[in-house]
């Protein structure tokens, strides 16, 4: 496992993407082919089922170290990762076991049919034969998550650089239904088991935030206006009866949206669509938070599919029956798109409505009200424009509604997990409610690393109570919280719920006396 441990080590001693890519290439040049296939499998989330119960692993480690359970739990909550906690508390190894990654994986797969006693013997022997990094990897291989700070895209880039194969082809090949042991590294890389032409995506056309007055845009009739929705931008490809959904991050997300995949499969012909994937229930567009619950899951339960149904709002047609339409004007593409969808009337696939308006003033008032229907604002597209590759100023503008903000005080803090396990990163904020405080929102993001360190220090010094991992802190630090919407809620103590709350900035200039009052905040609800 030395090569693999070296790779992990190299990946962990840099935060530069290029260095990570170099480390992966270095690994690919040295590791045996069977190991490479396993490496790709593990790094793309194709991991075997867990055959060893984590509770037993904890028990065995306590047996070896003679530590009390509570102390293990304290250690675990400080590390934030079980496999790592185990590898840190275990005594140094007394032997040296040398096995390749695929040999380890084979052994681990075989645990399935073993008794608990045999599993225990295997794990204990392995722990005693591996150094710290290898032991950590071993614990991860046993079935935990294997996240090591390499995105799918970085992996694809490294494989592209190593093999000379095109990125989209590799993405397609890697996303397919393959299993280590059943496919060779060469087959995987050369993509000989798939037809890469079927999945090849176009670069997305991207919009700039609107930066000038509407009257500077020219005549209103030159523009096509649509609502802007906060979902997942997706390119939906159907060629030769194969369906692919690419996200803007150049990831294949087809399997995450089976409803779309199946609906598109039912449609006739070949085409490439551009649209927004949204959670839609009873005709209402749900929060992105809801959609997010479905993303990046290994399996989508029936309940989840029923609770968070999705649809695509399609706004562009890039290819029809093999013809690239991107150079055609927006207006023409739109007409062809309408025809395609009108003929087929597919379920789950709607056309993004255009907004009719008389003059810019009217559009202004439409934009201001867009929040009422959970929209983020408007999209303005030049009717004459081609479908650009990437970002080009002038033809596509996004015009978002400005967020609402309040000033609130930090009252609870909790440590983050994984990457942020050493610091308090999860905060709960309160506003005034007559003479007392009432919690209004939780927010995780928005501060710089340096600010998080400072807040953590404050929490350490000013913690009042401890509820498990949560610390109550002196109400002193004031933050400006932005949110996209606000509504009454019986589930919240304050009686209101904020949508997408996030920290805009730390208001060091303000004291707790200057934070907002709940009654005033309620007035924001329309």
């Amino acid at each position: 496992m030395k090569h693999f441990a070296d790779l992990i080590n190299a990946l962990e001693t840099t935060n530069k993407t290029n260095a990570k890519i170099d480390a992966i290439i270095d690994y690919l040049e040295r590791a045996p082919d069977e190991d490479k296939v396993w490496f790709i499998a593990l790094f793309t989330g194709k991991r075997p089922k867990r055959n060893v119960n984590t509770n037993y692993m904890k028990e065995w480690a306590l047996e070896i170290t003679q530590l009390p359970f509570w102390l293990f739990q304290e250690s675990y909550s400080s590390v934030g990762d079980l496999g790592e906690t185990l590898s840190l508390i275990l005594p140094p190894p007394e032997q040296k076991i040398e096995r390749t990654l695929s040999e380890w994986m084979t052994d681990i797969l075989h645990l399935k049919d073993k008794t608990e006693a045999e599993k225990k013997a295997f794990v204990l022997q392995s722990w005693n034969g591996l150094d710290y990094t290898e032991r950590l990897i071993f614990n991860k291989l046993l079935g935990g998550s294997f996240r090591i700070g390499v995105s799918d895209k970085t992996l694809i880039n490294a494989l592209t650089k190593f093999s000379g194969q095109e990125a989209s082809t590799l993405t397609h090949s890697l996303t397919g239904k393959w299993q280590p042991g059943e496919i060779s590294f060469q087959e995987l890389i050369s993509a000989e088991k798939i037809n890469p032409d079927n999945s090849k995506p176009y670069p997305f056309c991207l919009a700039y935030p609107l930066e000038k007055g509407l009257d500077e845009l020219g005549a209103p009739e030159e523009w096509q206006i649509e609502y802007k929705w906060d979902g997942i931008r997706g390119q939906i490809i159907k060629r030769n009866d194969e369906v692919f959904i690419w996200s803007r991050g150049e990831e294949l997300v087809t399997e995450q949206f089976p409803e779309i995949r199946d609906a598109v499969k039912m449609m006739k012909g070949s085409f490439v669509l551009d649209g927004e994937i949204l959670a839609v229930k009873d005709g209402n567009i749900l929060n992105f938070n809801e959609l997010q619950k479905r993303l990046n899951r290994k399996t989508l339960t029936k309940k989840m599919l029923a609770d968070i149904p999705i649809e695509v709002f399609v706004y562009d047609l890039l290819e029809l029956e093999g013809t690239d339409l991107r150079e055609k004007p927006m207006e023409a593409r739109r007409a062809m798109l309408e025809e395609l969808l009108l003929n087929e009337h597919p379920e789950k696939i709607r056309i993004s409505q255009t907004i009719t308006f008389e003059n810019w003033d009217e559009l202004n008032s439409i934009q201001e009200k867009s929040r009422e229907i959970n929209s983020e604002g408007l999209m303005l597209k030049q009717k004459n424009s081609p479908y650009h590759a990437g970002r080009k100023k002038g033809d596509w503008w996004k015009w978002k509604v400005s967020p609402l903000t309040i000033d609130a005080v930090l009252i609870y803090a909790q440590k983050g997990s994984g990457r942020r396990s050493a610091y308090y990163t999860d905060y709960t904020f309160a506003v005034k409610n007559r003479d007392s405080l009432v919690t209004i929102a939780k927010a995780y993001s928005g501060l710089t690393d340096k600010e998080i360190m400072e807040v953590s220090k404050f929490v350490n010094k000013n913690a009042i109570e401890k509820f498990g991992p949560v610390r109550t802190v002196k109400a002193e630090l004031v933050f400006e919280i932005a949110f996209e919407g606000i509504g009454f809620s019986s589930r919240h103590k304050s009686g209101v719920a904020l949508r997408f709350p996030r920290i805009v900035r730390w208001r060091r200039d303000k004291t707790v006396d200057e934070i907002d009052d709940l009654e005033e905040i309620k007035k924001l609800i329309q």
Partner: protein
Amino acid sequence: MNVKYKPITPLKLITFTKKGIYCPQGKFYIDPWRPVDLAVITHGHADHARWGMKKYLCHHFTKPVLYQRIGPDIECQSVEYGEIVHINGVKVSLHPAGHIIGSAQIRLEYKGFVTVVSGDYKIQDDGLSTPFELVRCNEFVTESTFGLPIYNWLEVNDLNKKLQSWVLKNQENSKTSVFIGYSLGKAQRIMKAVEGLGKTYVHYSIGKLNKAFEESGILLPDYKIADFRENIKELQHEIVIVPPALLDSSIIRKIPDAATAICSGWMQVRGARRWRSADAGFPISDHADWKGLLQAVKATEAEKVHVTHGQTDIFSKYLNEIGIKADVIETLFGEDEEESEKEIIETPEL
């Protein structure tokens, strides 16, 4: 009488007051955080050696550090390890704590009762500080910075090898190796670890402390003071050591081809390593690890242990469970190391 810091030993050789750890019989404080008449200082880190004392007592090696950090006008008496000073009938002596150069455990003896205030300490021999000396006592005051079983350090040699191979790899890739570590203690250890691998540049604040050590006759590896303003190009592909306050600063960003490494015990945990905006993290610490803390506490054979800064609740709970009477003492130690680094860095000579 302050209610919060109740005296706990029947002999009251030390009490814990608002101003710091106090010896009522000797009428002196150890590492106090408020101005007092006589302060016995364990070591030169800013959370232990503070400004405003009428008189300081410390080890010979700590004296120039205090002059450097607090000011040249202070009244400071320094002693050798093991040298006995009688203060109002209390026998006071300093014993190596192995934390940084000149760091000391303070041993107090009165009517046959012995208390040791260990300040910060580590058991590992770092090759620079005088190695930790075990001092038997009735009452032991211990830190607990890394008082969790996940913190067990590598052997100093193995750790140094890791630093060396990182530097070599950087040189291979035409990178500048930038280490981030406290200017007092850690920086000198890093200098020692990478000695001979290339030209070593240190930040001005580290240079100042190096001079203080050199004045005490301590031999440090060759180094140059880095000139980040006029001559930052000369750092390219060399070794640079800067204090933590410069992390994320524009100075580090300006260093050409920099690969950065944070050197701190906290880097033992991947989460902490990955979270910081550095390339690498090396768990090098001047504090005792879990095994070290337990080893020291047990070996003192103290009947009573006071746990100060760090994982206080956890460590004292565990000590009580294994039959060692321990309690938690609140102090202001261990909190301001970083802030004090900042003060030095913001001097105009930067």
